[in-house]
C-alpha cells in the first residue's frame, strides 16, 4: 500500500487495539470572539469513540455538535483541551494532514470535476499509483452503487447520487474515521430513510469508525451504536440509543428524544431504591432512583415516562405501581394506535399511545375521568442530586 501518511499504525484496523479509542476528546472547549464578545460554542466535551463504532452527536442547532466535529477534522483548533486520533494528539496538525475524512452537508463536490476525478482526488494527493487509483475508485463506486457514472459531473446527478459521491470520495481514502455532518439533511424523507439503511450497510462493510452529526433523533436512534446528546456546548447524555430513549438522564434529553411526559411531585417516602411521590388528591408515582441520585421526603422530583408505557384504566389500579388521576382532553385515532391527550390534576398535559391490538372499543372518550397507570421501572427520575450527568464513563466500545 503506497501510503505516505505520517502516522505509523495504519494497516491494522483490526479490533486488537480497541483499547486505544479511534477518537478521543479530552476537555475540549471552543469559544469565538464575535463583535467583541466571547461566545462559547463548546464548553468542555470528553468523548472516547471506539474503533469501528457508529457514533452520533445529536442535538439542536447551535448545540456545538458541528463545531465539535470540525475540531476533529482540523478545521477548528480547540481553545482548550486536546483531540487524539488513535492515541496521538493532533493539536496543530492541519486538516490536510489528518487521517480522517469528512462528508459535508452540502456535499461540497468539486463542480468542475467528473465523479471519477472527485473520488480520486484524495488518492492523487497521496500519490497512489494510477492503476491502484482506478481499482479503488471502481471498488468504492460499486459499494455506493454508482458504477458507470464515472464521467458524470456532479450537477448532472440527483441529490441522492451526489450524496453517495461525497461518501465515496471520503471512504476511498480508507480514513481512520469518517465524519458526517448532517449528510442526509438535504434529501427528502423517502430518500433519507433509504440512505440511512444504506449508510449503515456501508459502515458495516468497510468497518470504519463513523462520527455522525445530526439534529434528527430518529436518524440517530436507528443508525448509531452510541449517541452523545449535546446541548448548549455540553454532552447531556452518552449512551446506546436504547439507554438514551428509555432512560433520559436530563430533562433536556427527555424532551429532545421522542415524546416524553414530564410530571413533577413531592417525595413522601422512600421504599428501597424507589421514591414515592404523591400526586393530586389520591394519586401517586413510584419511581426508581439511579445509584447516583438521592432524594428525601419533601424533595421536589421530576419524573419522565414515555407515552407508550402508560396505560389508561377506568378504576384506580391496585398494586404498587404509579397511579395518576386525569381527564381525557383529546383522542386521536391513528389506525394502528390511538393517541390520548390527558390533563392531570395540576394541569400537566400527558400524552399516551395505546396500540389498537386487542380492544375493539375505545378505552376512553373525551371528557372521561380516568387513571393513568405504569410500572415504576418504566419511569425515570430527573434531578435529585446528580443533575448534571456529563459524559458517562464510556462503555466498552460496541
Amino acid at each position: 500500500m503506497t501510503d505516505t501518511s505520517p502516522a505509523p499504525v495504519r494497516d491494522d484496523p483490526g479490533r486488537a487495539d480497541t483499547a486505544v479509542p479511534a477518537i478521543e476528546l479530552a476537555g475540549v472547549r471552543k469559544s469565538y470572539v464575535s463583535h467583541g464578545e466571547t461566545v462559547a460554542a463548546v464548553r468542555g466535551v470528553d468523548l472516547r469513540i471506539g474503533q469501528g463504532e457508529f457514533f452520533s452527536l445529536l442535538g439542536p442547532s447551535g448545540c456545538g455538535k458541528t463545531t465539535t466535529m470540525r475540531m476533529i477534522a482540523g478545521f477548528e483548533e480547540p481553545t482548550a483541551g486536546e483531540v487524539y486520533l488513535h492515541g496521538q494528539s493532533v493539536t496543530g496538525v492541519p486538516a490536510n494532514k489528518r487521517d480522517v475524512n469528512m462528508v459535508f452537508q452540502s456535499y461540497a463536490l468539486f463542480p468542475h470535476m467528473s465523479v471519477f476525478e472527485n473520488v480520486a482526488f484524495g488518492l492523487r494527493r497521496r500519490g497512489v499509483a494510477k492503476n491502484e487509483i482506478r481499482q479503488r475508485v471502481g471498488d468504492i463506486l460499486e459499494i455506493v452503487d454508482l458504477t458507470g457514472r464515472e464521467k458524470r459531473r456532479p450537477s448532472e446527478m440527483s441529490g441522492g447520487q451526489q450524496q453517495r459521491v461525497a461518501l465515496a470520495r471520503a471512504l476511498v481514502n480508507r480514513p481512520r474515521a469518517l465524519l458526517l455532518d448532517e449528510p442526509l439533511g438535504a434529501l427528502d424523507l423517502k430518500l433519507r430513510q433509504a440512505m440511512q439503511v444504506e449508510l449503515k450497510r456501508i459502515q458495516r462493510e468497510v468497518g470504519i469508525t463513523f462520527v455522525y452529526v445530526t439534529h434528527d433523533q430518529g436518524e440517530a436512534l436507528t443508525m448509531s451504536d452510541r449517541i452523545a446528546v449535546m446541548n448548549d456546548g455540553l454532552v447531556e447524555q452518552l449512551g446506546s440509543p436504547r439507554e438514551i430513549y428509555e432512560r433520559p438522564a436530563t430533562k433536556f434529553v427527555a424532551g429532545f428524544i421522542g415524546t416524553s411526559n414530564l410530571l413533577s411531585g413531592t417525595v413522601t417516602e422512600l421504599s428501597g431504591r424507589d421514591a414515592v411521590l404523591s400526586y393530586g388528591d389520591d394519586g401517586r408515582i413510584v419511581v426508581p432512583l439511579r445509584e447516583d441520585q438521592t432524594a428525601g421526603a419533601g424533595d421536589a422530583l421530576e419524573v419522565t415516562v414515555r407515552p407508550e408505557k402508560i396505560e389508561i384504566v377506568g378504576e384506580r389500579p391496585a398494586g404498587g405501581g404509579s397511579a395518576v388521576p386525569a381527564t381525557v382532553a383529546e383522542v386521536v385515532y391513528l389506525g394502528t394506535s390511538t393517541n390520548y391527550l390527558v390533563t392531570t390534576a395540576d394541569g400537566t398535559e400527558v400524552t399516551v399511545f395505546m396500540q389498537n391490538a386487542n380492544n375493539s372499543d375505545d378505552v376512553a372518550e373525551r371528557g372521561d375521568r380516568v387513571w393513568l397507570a405504569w410500572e415504576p421501572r418504566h419511569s425515570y427520575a430527573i434531578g435529585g442530586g446528580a443533575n448534571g450527568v456529563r459524559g458517562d464513563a464510556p462503555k466498552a466500545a460496541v
Partner: protein
Amino acid sequence: MTTTVTSPAPAAPPRPRRRNPLRGRGLQAYTILLVAWLVLPVAVMILFGFNDTHSKQNFQWEGFTLKWYARLFEKKDLTTALVNSLTIALLTTVFATVLGTLVGLALGRYRFRGQGVANLVMFAAISCPELVMGASLLSMFVALETPRGYLTILAAHVMFSVSFVAITVRARAVGLDPRIEEAAKDLGAGPLTTFRLVTLPMIMPGVVSGAMLAFALSVDDFIITNFTSGATQTFPLWVWSSTRTGTPPQVNVMGTLIFAVGVLLAVVNIAASRRRARNT
C-alpha cells in the same frame, strides 16, 4: 331531489397570446436601427481600409483596393505605436489579472480589517473621471521626477485595470461555497494545491472576463495614456495626432484587425461558456 344549477357561462378560455403585428414590426425596426447604429461606425472604418485614396485625407470613396493591407507596416512610427499599445495591453492584462484576482479573492472570500476601505478604493478607482486620474498621475510623476514613458503608461494602466479584474473576480468568489475548499483540504490538499486545483478553476470565468476587460481598457485608452506617455507613442495617441494632418488608411486597417481579434475572442468566449453550460 335534483337541483338545477345554472352555472354562469363558462369563462372564455385564455386567449392564445397573439402577437400584435404592428408591435412585432415596430420591434423589428427598432432592433435593426439599434444594431445599425452600433455597427455603422465600425463598418465605415472597415470600408475605408479598402479605399483607394490618393489624397492625405481618407474621407472620399475612390474605389476598392487591398494595397493598404500590403503596405500595413509602411509607416514606421505607426507600427511602433501599435506594438507599444499591444505589448502594454498584454503586460497590463498579466499584471492586472494576477493582482486583481488576488484582491478579488480576498474581498469576496474573507472578512478582514480594512475590507471596507479596500472596497471603497476599488470603486473610487473605477468611478474616478479619467481626466482627473490622468492629471493627478502626471503631477505625481512630475513631483517624483519620474521620466514619463513606456513604464509610466504601463503602471497607470495596471493601476486602473486592477479594480475591474478585482470586482469581476470578487463577484465570482462571493458565490463560492467555502466548504468546497475545505473538502479539498480534508482530502489532503495543501493550501497551494487547493488553490490550483479547486479555487482557481471555479473562479476562472471571472478571471477570464476580468483579463479581457483589462486588455480592452488598456489597448484603446487615450486620456490617461496621454498624460503619462512622455514621448512614447501608443496607437490611440498616434491616431489622435494624425487627425490634424490626415489619418492614413493603415489606421483603418489596424483598427479592423484589432476589431477582428476582439470579435474572435468574444466568439471563442461564448462558445466556451456554452460548452461549460452543457457540461455542468
